[in-house]
């Protein structure tokens, strides 16, 4: 194990709520400077995982090491390396942004001499410089979210844990928060949970999909792109030929006629097929006006994985 590079190590984590198993035997690692996306449908165990990682919840079994320090055995030392934004930002509405962040700085034991500069840096990074004197209760939701993030990074922890940081924000705010997270990766490892898939594609290095308390996929974004590779071509033509004519061009591939001039072609080596189809279409005047490779998007993979898992479960239950 190259321990100097692994900031978070999670070993066979389980958590029960009464008879309900929220998490079962989850293990993973996060390296330095990595942004890990945690994906899953509602109730999959994302927030539970985040709560355990941040020390808000004790696991029923398993252990969490933050930079080699056991979160259960030495909670104070381990928590000093953590910044956590829960799904509901923990803000005191009656305080101003400055007062609140100063309080957080003190809670995280930042020495008095460095407090002001830590406060300034956190405010500047989260775009809060203008609102320092305003009451948190009077801020908009987007700004409150930013205060929540500022709170999580004020002591520049090694690991930042963000639980659904973009929920309920408008598209511009979402983009701002995303660029903020992208900046964070320079100095911190980030764990991020979300159920918004493009978000993961946009900012994460690695993805883990969790469903019913189980890790069902753990892959890099590149690996994920690989899974999304196209397997079919989509054609639309104004004067479509007979299906047989298309089948002749495609050769070994399969052609599906979908009516209204729409066709789908499944074949190996799609690029070459596409080229051939276009050439033929132009030569024969089929009026081809739409051709695109059909890619599986993250959403389909997600549904695929989570629902197939579901199917397996049900089969097991039946047999």
């Amino acid at each position, binding site marked *: 194990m190259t321990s100097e590079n692994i900031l978070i190590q999670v070993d066979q984590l389980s958590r029960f709520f009464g008879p309900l198993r929220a998490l079962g035997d989850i293990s993973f690692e996060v390296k330095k400077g990595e942004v890990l996306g945690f994906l899953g449908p509602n109730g999959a165990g994302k927030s539970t995982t985040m709560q355990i990682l941040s020390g*808000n919840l004790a696991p029923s079994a398993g252990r969490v090491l933050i930079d080699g320090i056991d979160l259960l055995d030495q909670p*104070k030392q381990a*928590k000093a390396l953590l910044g956590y934004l829960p799904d509901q930002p923990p803000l005191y509405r009656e*305080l101003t942004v400055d007062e609140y962040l100063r309080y957080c700085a003190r*809670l995280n034991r930042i020495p008095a001499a460095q407090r002001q500069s830590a406060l300034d840096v956190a405010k500047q990074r989260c775009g809060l410089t203008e609102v320092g004197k305003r009451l948190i209760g009077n801020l908009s939701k987007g700004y409150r979210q930013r205060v929540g993030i500022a709170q999580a990074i004020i002591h520049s922890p090694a690991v930042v844990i963000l639980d659904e940081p973009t929920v309920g924000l408008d598209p511009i705010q979402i983009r701002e928060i995303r660029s903020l997270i992208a900046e964070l990766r320079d100095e911190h490892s980030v764990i991020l949970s979300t159920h918004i898939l493009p978000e993961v594609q946009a900012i994460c290095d690695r993805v883990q999909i969790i469903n019913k308390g189980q890790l069902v996929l753990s892959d890099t974004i590149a690996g994920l792109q690989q899974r999304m590779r196209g397997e079919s071509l989509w054609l639309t033509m104004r004067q479509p030929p007979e299906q047989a004519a298309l089948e002749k061009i495609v050769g070994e591939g399969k052609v599906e006629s979908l009516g209204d001039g729409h066709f789908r072609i499944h074949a190996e080596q799609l690029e070459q097929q596409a080229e051939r189809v276009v050439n033929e279409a132009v030569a024969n005047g089929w009026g081809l006006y739409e051709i695109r490779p059909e890619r599986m998007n993250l959403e389909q993979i997600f549904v695929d994985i989570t629902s197939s898992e579901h199917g397996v479960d049900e089969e097991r239950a039946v047999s």
Partner: protein
Amino acid sequence: MMAFTIAGRELRSLFLSPLAWSILAVVQLILAYMFLTQLDLFVALQSRLLGMAGAPGATEIIVAPLLGNAAVVLLLVVPMLTMRLVSEERRAQTLSLLFSAPLSMSEIVLGKFFGVMAFLLIMVLMIVLMPLSLLFGGSIDLGMLLAGVLGLVLLLASFAALGLFMSTLTEQPTIAAVSSFGVLLLLWIIDWAGGNASGSGSAAQASELFAYLSLLRHFESLLKGVFDSGDVIYYLLFVALFLGLSIRRLDADRLQH
């Protein structure tokens, strides 16, 4: 120490809400009225007292009842101050800020407790100013006053510790307030049980036990100016017990249950 950071925030938040100010104002008003009626009584009795040997002085007639009344009024008020301590944070989900910071549970609980105590000490200070104003026109028994104030502070610390514990039990501040008021009142009057069961036997023994448990009994002797370390230890144990229970309760939030 981290507990003082939390206490400072707690105190600040109290004074940022109108609750603290209105409580201070109302308590001061009511106690000032009581103080003045006692003062009136003393002035009326003064000529007769002069002729008596070993007659009660100003301190017995004015200060002791004032502090006694203050205890009763604060029995009603303290639950309103402590109810929000944890339950409000739990409801607003701000507790995770404390849980994910490098703090131990005891620091969190002590911080909350010190925050309320700081407020209550301010209140006691305001109350004590009234008897101290008598120094302009005469003399009072400062030792007795001191014993009474010590009793009041210890009593309030017990109220606060119990209120804090009740607040850790629930998400609803009102439930915390009602239950801490209920328990405090019960502990206040618990010595009524068997109060007329004189003589010997198990009933008398039980009544003695209940009398010992009563929050009021230990306060009364301090009010009379009798400093018994047993009374002080009783209050300290009471506070330690409920702070300990609060720590256990907050710890249990994280654990399996």
